[in-house]
């Protein structure tokens, strides 16, 4: 048994930390919150090879797995890197599975980051939901995934997908739609006729989102294998979980440092049990999340039938951990932690939005229960 990162994986983490630390990201995000321009980290991602992380080597990528992608996302999460990589990694995973249709040149362009693609995803059916669904623009009910008319390798897609990560400015979109033959992935160009992307920003200035509307948009069918399309959704769950883990790490580090240097009643506040126990709780949730992310990475490779459960469990743990850690970060700092200039609110904003995207933490939790109840149900 060796349930730890390999030397190569550790090197990947170190390189990512190094590449991101060259930017003064947190300072820049404060500026973005004040209306400034968001830093362009895409060249950093290209240089580091992250744009082709999960694309096979034969198609110009790094040929790495879900775990490596999650490790990179964790590093991005530490500094809240405003990098439109979530959609790109999930979409390229789908494209790589059908490389023949996509074509070597197009896939290569995505892998090397010359073009950027986003993922207008849909959640697969569950034990209590029969249909492929997307996030609604507003409200508790899930929305129907777009529909596709398939003719050969082409498809015409109509429908809307709300809150699509990284959609604004994307060169292309992989849209998950339902058709008469079942679910399909359709690659459409960002500027194709019938495609419109409304840029929407909410609360977290580091996260680019778009409402995608498709009105008879034409594209190429790049996948109809239900397992692959479902795995893409779960990969997105794992990536958000990993990104959250990174944010929790920094929230804990910063809180510990402050708890050691801030004094009250003649003692460092970190010596009080009320503070200490809260920070240990962050540690507990953080390490549980890390273990589940390793589980998801392992399952994707070695036990694909467990990947959905593992990724949803990771997302669940990460969502709770980030909520708790971001609130602890504020409360350990006292009033100052709740001010505009402090870093804590940036992590709090990240926590608020992240936990509501791509089905939200709650949908992932429901799927954990669903997987277990289904396995337990008498045949």
């Amino acid at each position: 048994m060796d349930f730890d990162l390999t030397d190569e994986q550790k090197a990947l983490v170190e390189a990512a930390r190094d590449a991101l630390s060259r930017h003064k990201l947190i300072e820049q995000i404060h500026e973005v919150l004040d209306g400034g321009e968001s830093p362009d980290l895409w060249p950093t991602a290209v240089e580091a090879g992250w744009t082709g992380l999960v694309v096979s080597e034969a198609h110009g990528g790094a040929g790495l797995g879900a775990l490596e992608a999650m490790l990179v996302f964790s590093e991005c999460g530490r500094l809240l890197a405003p990098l439109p990589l979530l959609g790109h990694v999930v979409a390229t995973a789908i494209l790589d599975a059908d490389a023949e249709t996509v074509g070597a040149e197009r896939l290569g362009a995505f892998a090397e980051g010359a073009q950027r693609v986003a993922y207008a995803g849909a959640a697969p059916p569950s034990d209590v939901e029969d249909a492929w669904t997307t996030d609604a623009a507003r409200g508790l009910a899930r929305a129907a995934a777009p529909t596709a008319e398939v003719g050969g390798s082409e498809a015409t897609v109509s429908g809307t997908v709300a809150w699509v990560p990284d959609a604004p400015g994307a060169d292309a979109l992989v849209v998950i739609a339902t058709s008469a033959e079942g679910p399909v992935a359709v690659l459409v160009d960002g500027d194709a006729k019938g495609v419109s992307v409304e840029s929407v920003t909410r609360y977290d200035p580091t996260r680019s989102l778009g409402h995608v509307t498709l009105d008879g948009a034409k594209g190429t069918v790049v996948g109809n294998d239900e397992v692959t399309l479902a795995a893409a959704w779960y990969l997105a769950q794992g990536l958000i979980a990993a990104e959250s883990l990174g944010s929790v790490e920094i929230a804990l580090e910063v809180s510990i440092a402050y708890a050691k240097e801030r004094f009250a009643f003649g003692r460092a506040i970190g010596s009080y049990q009320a503070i200490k126990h809260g920070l240990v709780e962050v540690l507990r949730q953080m390490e549980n999340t890390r273990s589940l992310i390793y589980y998801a990475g392992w399952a994707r490779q070695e036990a694909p039938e467990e990947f959905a459960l593992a990724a949803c469990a990771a997302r669940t743990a990460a969502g709770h951990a980030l909520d708790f850690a971001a609130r602890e970060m504020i409360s350990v700092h006292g009033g100052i932690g709740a001010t505009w200039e402090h870093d804590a609110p940036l992590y709090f904003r990240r926590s608020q939005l992240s936990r509501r995207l791509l089905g939200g933490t709650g949908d992932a939790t429901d799927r954990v229960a669903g997987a277990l109840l289904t396995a337990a149900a008498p045949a």
Partner: protein
Amino acid sequence: MDLNDTPEQAEYRAQVRAWLEEHKAQAPVISGPGAIEDEQELVTAHRAWQRELAEAGYTGITWPKEHGGQGLGPLHQVILNQEIQRAGVPGIIDVIGVGMLGPTIIAHGTDEQKERYLAPMLHADEVWCQLFSEPAAGSDLAGIQARAKLQDDGTWVLNGQKVWTTNAQFSAYGLLLARTDADVPKHKGLTVFIVPMDAPGVTIRGLRQISGEAEFNEVFFDDVKLEADSVVGPVNGGWGTALTTLMFERLTIGGGGEAMGYRADRFAQVLAADEAARVDPDVRRRLGNLSTELLAVRFTGYRLLTAIQKGQIPGPEAGLGKVTVVNAAIEAGELIADVLGPDALDEDGEWAYLISFLPGLKSAGGTEEILRNTIGERVLGLPPEPRLDKGIPFSELRAKERAEVPA
């Protein structure tokens, strides 16, 4: 990431599996349907099973060979435990002796003590119990009051009381922590002794818990005479000796909650049988959350084993697994009782037992609060809570504590 055995581990697993397959018919049923009801009979059968395991080389896996052990690594112990669980047979009866007390004697005992006690312990000819906690000293273990007084002839006389003593009712010996000098600060005046449980002046009483069952004992010592050679490690150096035991305790109970039956799939089973519960969003949310916690512990356990395999000694953060498991299991008990209603609280049923057992388990092996203090200080590097007992002789400390209690 690789959860597979190495070829050498796989070979060991195959060997263990084959042996268990051949011998499992001789294993006693110790719990569940068909379990031996008479306690005396149960203990006899369980001891015989340990003897059989010992003779086949399946006890003392990590003990050095010169002391009758197998000289193998902790991963071999894990493989053995997994195979024992898979075969549906009990493990050894004396987990406390073989897991914690034997290793303490190996580390600190005299050659004579090793020669005399270790082999009978491995074979369950003599079962052992741990006599550390007291009614007034649990988390603050160094505050124990059981007193051993040195006599002119070099023997000792022991007085005091211990509590939470598992297996005391059928143990031959206990490893006991006593105060031997009250006029020095509390960590400095302690000594570890081997106590024959049948010595005159030893009284053992079952201690019933919430469920009504007595899984622990309280043990009283009235002028119990101990020989000079019953001291383990240095006189007044017992704190260091006891820390060895506690370190092995962490390794022994670090195995996780799944071995204790706190598994997400077990809880899902009973909920899945209820049509309404299966589709209820609140039930599903609660099940999803607690299952996530239990799954996390399983994979944190694999990380821990990997670290152990690489020669690292687990730090206090390993204890967080127990915190997670206990709290998730408490949530499961709550959820199951909410779904099943009062019927879940049938005293003879498995859920009432689980619900009754967990509040106490929260404090077993150290309270959750003390564990969080230790981890906060040793792992996160947070400053310690100011202490009022540092450097004060134990006798003065006791007087001070008494003076502070309002009459």
